[in-house]
């Protein structure tokens, strides 16, 4: 039973990790919490729905790739419209965060106003296939999601280590101004960064959509992923992975435990937010993170 909980925790944790990587990637370079990421994740799920259910009958894998691309483009546009002016003006990270919230509110409610609040289901991929290992049951979809996420993050890692753009991104995380003086066009670099983060988000959205449902306030779940990123340390990619997985595990454990007879599962959300607040107060750098002071 315990191991089953672990498996459950890891499976949701891997999706959290994917989302958390998106947050941390942007944070590492631009030093702000991109709350619009949740909206991008949601839109990724909706693109998949539009492709697979509503307008066309695109099979899963192509739909996944198209959703990733679409979400990446949307994230790129988001940066252009809502952040690039502030970034060029070297505005404090708080302003960027507020702009992000504005985008999140707009997009989420745009979905409500146009498509509506109805929950949609994405066609069950791998049907309800499960794999049995002894007493454990793991759904094939979860295995796929876990493996595919891991592969994508590995590719991301290679990009950051091996390519010129990747090195430039890592350098920009430390000193964006200097990087521009070395000839890097920051607009292009940041655009690429957001495309990557958006694609990862889109993927996470599709997996969430398959696992659960598609609805406008899906973005809310990503608040949890954000907490995972904070636990691991904002700005650190390995931290995001560890944090996301850890959060998934902790949530799964809390869901099935009880304190003095009362189930704690309803308090799961308070628990997550409680961790967030406590972390921010006592250790905002999380496990691996880097703390940058407000530029006074």
């Amino acid at each position: 039973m315990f191991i089953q909980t672990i498996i459950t925790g890891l499976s949701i944790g891997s999706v959290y990790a994917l989302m958390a990587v998106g947050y941390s990637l942007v944070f590492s370079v631009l030093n702000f919490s991109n709350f619009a990421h949740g909206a991008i994740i949601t839109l990724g799920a909706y693109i998949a729905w539009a492709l697979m259910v509503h307008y066309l009958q695109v099979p899963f894998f192509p739909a996944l790739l198209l959703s990733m691309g679409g979400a990446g483009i949307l994230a790129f546009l988001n940066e252009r419209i809502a952040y690039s002016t502030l970034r060029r003006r070297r505005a404090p990270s708080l302003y960027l965060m507020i702009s992000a919230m504005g985008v999140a509110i707009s997009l989420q409610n745009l979905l409500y106003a146009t498509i509506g609040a109805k929950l949609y289901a994405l066609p069950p991929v791998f049907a309800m296939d499960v794999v049995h290992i002894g007493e454990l049951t793991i759904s094939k979809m979860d295995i796929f999601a876990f493996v595919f996420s891991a592969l994508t993050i590995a590719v991301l890692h290679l990009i950051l280590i091996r390519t010129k753009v990747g090195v430039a991104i890592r350098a920009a995380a430390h000193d964006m101004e200097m990087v521009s003086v070395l000839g890097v066009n920051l607009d292009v670099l940041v655009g690429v960064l957001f495309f990557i983060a958006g694609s990862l988000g889109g993927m996470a959205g599709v997996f969430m959509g398959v696992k659960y449902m598609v609805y406008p306030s899906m973005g809310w779940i990503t608040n949890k992923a954000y907490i995972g990123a904070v636990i691991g340390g904002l700005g650190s990619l390995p931290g995001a992975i560890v944090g996301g997985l850890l959060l998934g595990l902790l949530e799964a454990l809390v869901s099935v435990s009880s304190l003095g007879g009362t189930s704690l599962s309803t308090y799961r959300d308070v628990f997550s937010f409680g961790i967030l607040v406590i972390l921010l107060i006592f250790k905002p750098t999380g496990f691996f993170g880097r703390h940058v002071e407000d530029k006074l």
Partner: protein
Amino acid sequence: MAYLEAILINVAIYAIATLGLAIFTGYTGLFSLGHAAFMAVGAYTASILTYFYKVPFFAALALGVILSVLVSLLIGYPTLRARLRSDYFAIATLGFGEAVKVILENFDLTQGARGLPGIPKFSTLGNTYLLLVLAIILCRNFLKTTYGRKIIAIGQDPVAAEMIGIPLLPNQLLSLGISAGLAGLSGGLLAHYTTFIQPSIFSMDLSSLVTAGVVCGGMGSLTGPVTAVALFVIIPELFRGFALWRLVFYGMLLVIIINWRPKGLFGYEELNRKNLPKLFSIAGITGGLSLFMPTYRWVIESRGYEIFALLVAGAVAGAVTVLFGLLGKGLSLALAPVAERYHSLRGRLSERVESTSGELWSEGQRGASCAVRHTPDGLIDGTTALYETARLTPESSKENEAANYTAGTNVKTPILELEELRKNFGGVVAVDGLSFKLSEGELLGLIGPNGSGKTTVFNLISSVYPVDGGTILFRGMDITPWGPTEVVEAGVARTFQNIRLFGSMTVLENVQAALHREGSYSLLEGFLQWPNTVPKVERRLRDESRRLLAVVGLEREADRRASTLPYGLQRKLEIARALALRPKLLLLDEPAAGLNPREATELVELIKRIHQDEGLSIILIEHHMDVVMSLCPRILVLNFGRLIASGTPEQIQKDPRVLQAYLGEKAYAVVR
């Protein structure tokens, strides 16, 4: 008409909540994204009391306010104490907001997520507007007190605020308490208007509405946020049927404002004669828009042509907008002579104060005028004005003064003693076992190449960060472990290399802010602007501030916004503000940086005057050799965090170690 009443009541209710957030976010500079939580506390408290316990309305509201304040202090204390960077703080408030909501959903007394129906409808147009007006008056009064100025100072520059002795935590908590109280009041009024509340009402959407009101209305203003929230409530009503788009609209507006007009509608300004047209234009646009739909429908019904209807509606809307705009401008112009008379009256009053301090100022002027010599094309030939200044002070008197203070061995009571002071940053040693003594009333110079640790020494004395080793003794007391505000209270004041003024406050207010320890009336008296105590104290503070401005020669700029001052005058203002702290020891960090020769000479005169008239002990960091040489009878030279030489200007100039520090090992000095 009931419909109009509903809109107006909603405006009042949300305006009260926004006022509260304006104090916390707009003035103190701390972004709270979970303020709906305080509205929830106020709403639930008041509702439970009136519904279950039949408590009278105003008493229930008051208890709701009190509970909101208490909750805010409970949440605020650990969060503010952690001194998070601004976006982390905002996220923490978000977390708290959600936590409160979830707790309410799971609490039996509040009937959980189902909500509380059947609340008596006690909120009326009359009492909501009464409370709104009261809230506005109280907030206005508060901001004009010493308490309010402290909060505004913190919002402008927390580091500088601490450096003039304003402790951050208690003042931020005060600001939070006031804003939470107002939010709680608003929540109580809301509950008794809608008669049904559930936790989901107090969501992030509500918090965003209020936050958007402050951001779009303008930080540092009360008029702005109230206007903005009014618009946020009214405009969606004009486009009924587009209810879902309301939030899309807010979101977009937030993005637009923060990107292109971060000051908002009324940034750092209140309503006055000059921006009256702005308010009228906004009202005009709103009025025009509100007439658009009804006109459109009326034309459609009577004539039926859609395009025609659009044109007519557009024309009417446009006409109303223009009309209001003209009205605003006209009113503004009509009030101009009234404003003139008001200002001239104020001017005559302040002139009387000026005439007594005018003499000090003109003396300074005379001193400044004799040392400048520029050739027309800006190139200085022969001798620079700076070099000239070095010869102003006769050699003999410097030697006399130096004899009293040589090398710290023959000192009178030392006012400051540093012993083996050490500070590391990561691997770099900034201060390496520094020791020296400063005598009372001495004017000491501290020089050294860039990166030699001079500013670090100041930062250690004024406790910007802790020491890694050694002790600092001030007037015999060990101040090494003390915090910045305690050091200020003990009598140490400093200026900064890169000026840290409170930009949006006036010149006078900057100095007044530093006099915060001398205003003695209670918070309650402040809220009410109690006629017996408050005006007297405020006038005394203003007069004292003017006197200090006159000492540095800035009394004519008293009502100017500090950020509009030219660079040289900003430096002077920093000095006046430091003097307001009644220091025994003044630390001046490169006061001549960026000054042209004339300004530098004025500065030299000013420092001399302060030193003699106020009897201060002064340590001066400078790179302008001539400034240091002409002012300081004794100079310490630092390099790589260590003291390498100490003596009179002449001794320093000939000291081979000093030359080596500045010139490198290749130089030998030979004195003929």
